[in-house]
């Protein structure tokens, strides 16, 4: 059904051959939370430690040089995956930290400005004044909401949000009145982790650009699943995590426009982000080192680079097409079950593979438990997007997400599991 063979892919993922709950084969439908890792990623991390391990960007011994080269080659490869320049990629511990890095740039620049400090050229874009506005959407993951709430609480800026339509899309008409000449930053998700909705980036970006606002795109749920080109997106910042795209835990990425990165005051400070240090004060390295204080996660960068190679070999167009087929089938089959309601777009158009649903009369926790008992791993709860649950007046949802190692039989198992939950709880 698509340009690759799922059975062959599955052989690359050792964890997929294990069993769970009394010897049942594992059916992993929780890649939206974190993906599984192929051997090539695991091998790359191990190999770094076995052959090159040293603290990067420090020391001049051979291992230090090799480690530094491996780390910077990984940065270049990861940048290439989204057609970006290597020095515009900053490694963080995860996507949450990447978003915080930008939010704290606003806070730190504002505080320094109030003290009359000398700021880098262009830094005034990050100075907030009482009554300035920050715009997000109602479908954000908490990681792209709470940092902005905190920023507003500390600076006197006002948080506004684009609402949602009943079928899980952004209420684009809100843009006309929400984005004003007080808007300083617009931060929104490319693809909702709960609803699966893929947003119209250009439409939101253009409205933000028209008033000179900084634009941040949370691409955690898009970069793992579709081809992304920074030039096409044409935003100011993109954030995403490594572990959702077959990479290791402990590494996330921030891509930023070079002129903006150059004008930004540091977030976390300390070793290796400096240019000169005296007891009186310090000057800072240029990007990306300015934002990478401390010994960085070189082994994880190398492993994430291997994940990029793995996905590139499959082809991101193939990944997207494959997931689209699974999404179409899952939407059709789940919504055909009496008492099951999809929360989010009902069709696979402009939609990723995150499928949230509720089952009448059965709490999502209980649906998830029956599925777990059948060996099917899904996520239950509010998916760190509690306001979305409130918007659709559900306490929580059950969510299935698909990736390269899932096939149509996994969709059928999910559907059978939901029917089994209904039978068990006598709700249908």
């Amino acid at each position, binding site marked *: 059904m698509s340009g690759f063979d799922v059975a062959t892919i599955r052989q690359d993922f050792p964890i997929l051959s294990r069993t769970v*709950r*009394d010897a049942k084969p594992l059916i992993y439908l929780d890649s939206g939370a974190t993906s599984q890792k192929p051997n090539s990623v695991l091998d790359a991390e191990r190999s770094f430690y076995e052959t090159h391990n040293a603290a990067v960007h420090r020391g001049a011994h051979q291992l230090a040089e090799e480690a530094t080269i491996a780390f910077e080659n990984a940065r270049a490869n990861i940048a290439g995956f989204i057609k970006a320049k290597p020095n515009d990629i900053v490694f963080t511990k995860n996507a949450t930290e990447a978003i915080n890095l930008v939010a704290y740039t606003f806070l730190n620049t504002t505080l320094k400005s109030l003290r009359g400090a000398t700021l880098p050229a262009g830094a005034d874009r990050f100075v907030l004044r009482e009554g300035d506005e920050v715009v997000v959407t109602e479908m954000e993951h908490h990681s792209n909401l709470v940092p902005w709430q905190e920023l507003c609480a500390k600076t006197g800026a006002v948080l506004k949000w684009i609402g949602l339509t009943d079928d899980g899309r952004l209420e684009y008409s809100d843009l006309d009145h929400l984005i004003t000449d007080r808007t300083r930053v617009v931060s929104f998700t490319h693809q909702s982790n709960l609803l699966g909705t893929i947003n119209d980036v250009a439409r939101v970006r253009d409205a933000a650009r028209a008033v000179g606002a900084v634009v941040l795109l949370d691409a955690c749920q898009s970069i793992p699943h579709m081809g992304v080109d920074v030039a096409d997106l044409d935003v100011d910042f993109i954030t995403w995590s490594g572990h959702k795209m077959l990479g290791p835990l402990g590494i996330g990425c921030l891509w930023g426009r070079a002129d903006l990165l150059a004008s930004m005051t540091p977030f976390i400070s300390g070793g290796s982000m400096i240019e000169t240090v005296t007891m009186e004060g310090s000057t800072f390295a240029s990007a990306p080192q300015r934002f990478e204080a401390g010994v960085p996660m070189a082994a994880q960068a190398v492993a994430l680079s291997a994940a990029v190679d793995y996905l590139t070999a499959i082809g991101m167009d193939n990944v997207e097409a494959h997931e689209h087929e699974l999404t179409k089938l899952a939407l059709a089959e789940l919504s055909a079950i009496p008492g099951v309601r999809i929360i989010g777009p009902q069709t696979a158009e402009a939609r990723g593979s995150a499928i949230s649903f509720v089952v009448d009369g059965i*709490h*999502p*926790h*209980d649906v998830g*438990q*029956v599925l777990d*008992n059948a060996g099917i791993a899904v996520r*239950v*709860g*509010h998916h760190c997007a*509690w306001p979305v*649950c409130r918007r659709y007046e559900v*306490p*929580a949802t059950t969510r299935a997400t698909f990736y390269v190692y899932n096939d149509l039989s996994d969709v059928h198992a999910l559907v059978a599991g939901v029917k089994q939950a209904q039978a*068990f*709880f006598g709700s249908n």
Partner: protein
Amino acid sequence: MQLEQMYQEIILDHYKHPHGKGLVDNFAAQVHHVNPTCGDEITLQIRLDETDPTKLVISYQNQGCSISQASASILFDQLNDQSLTTGEQAVDHLVAMLQRVEEPNEDILGDGIALVGVAQYPARVKCALLAWMAWKDAAIQALGQEQTRESDK
């Protein structure tokens, strides 16, 4: 099947037909507890019995999974009109049972012994404990307020 050990018939009965659900206007203390990982919520109120103020009267409203709902219903059966000491003993025993360090004691927990199956699923232990932790919080607050009021006289 493990699933049926957790979802015993008695649990499903409490879930489908909960005891004592509903809030009142008069209470000495009201608490709102949530399970932030899944969004389960309970509002629990305690008022002191008019003739015997050591007896704690429970009212509550909640939403959540079958385990958290059934557990609140069982809490009402076991602890309504009971003292702080009796209640705290029950909470301690429930925690110990779910940590598998004590065998289920029906004299203390009543239908609550059916929650023992939850111990196999660490992610669900919080669901079973939510109402009981809310009760403990509210009970201590209610008695504390009463003491404050007494000392004001």
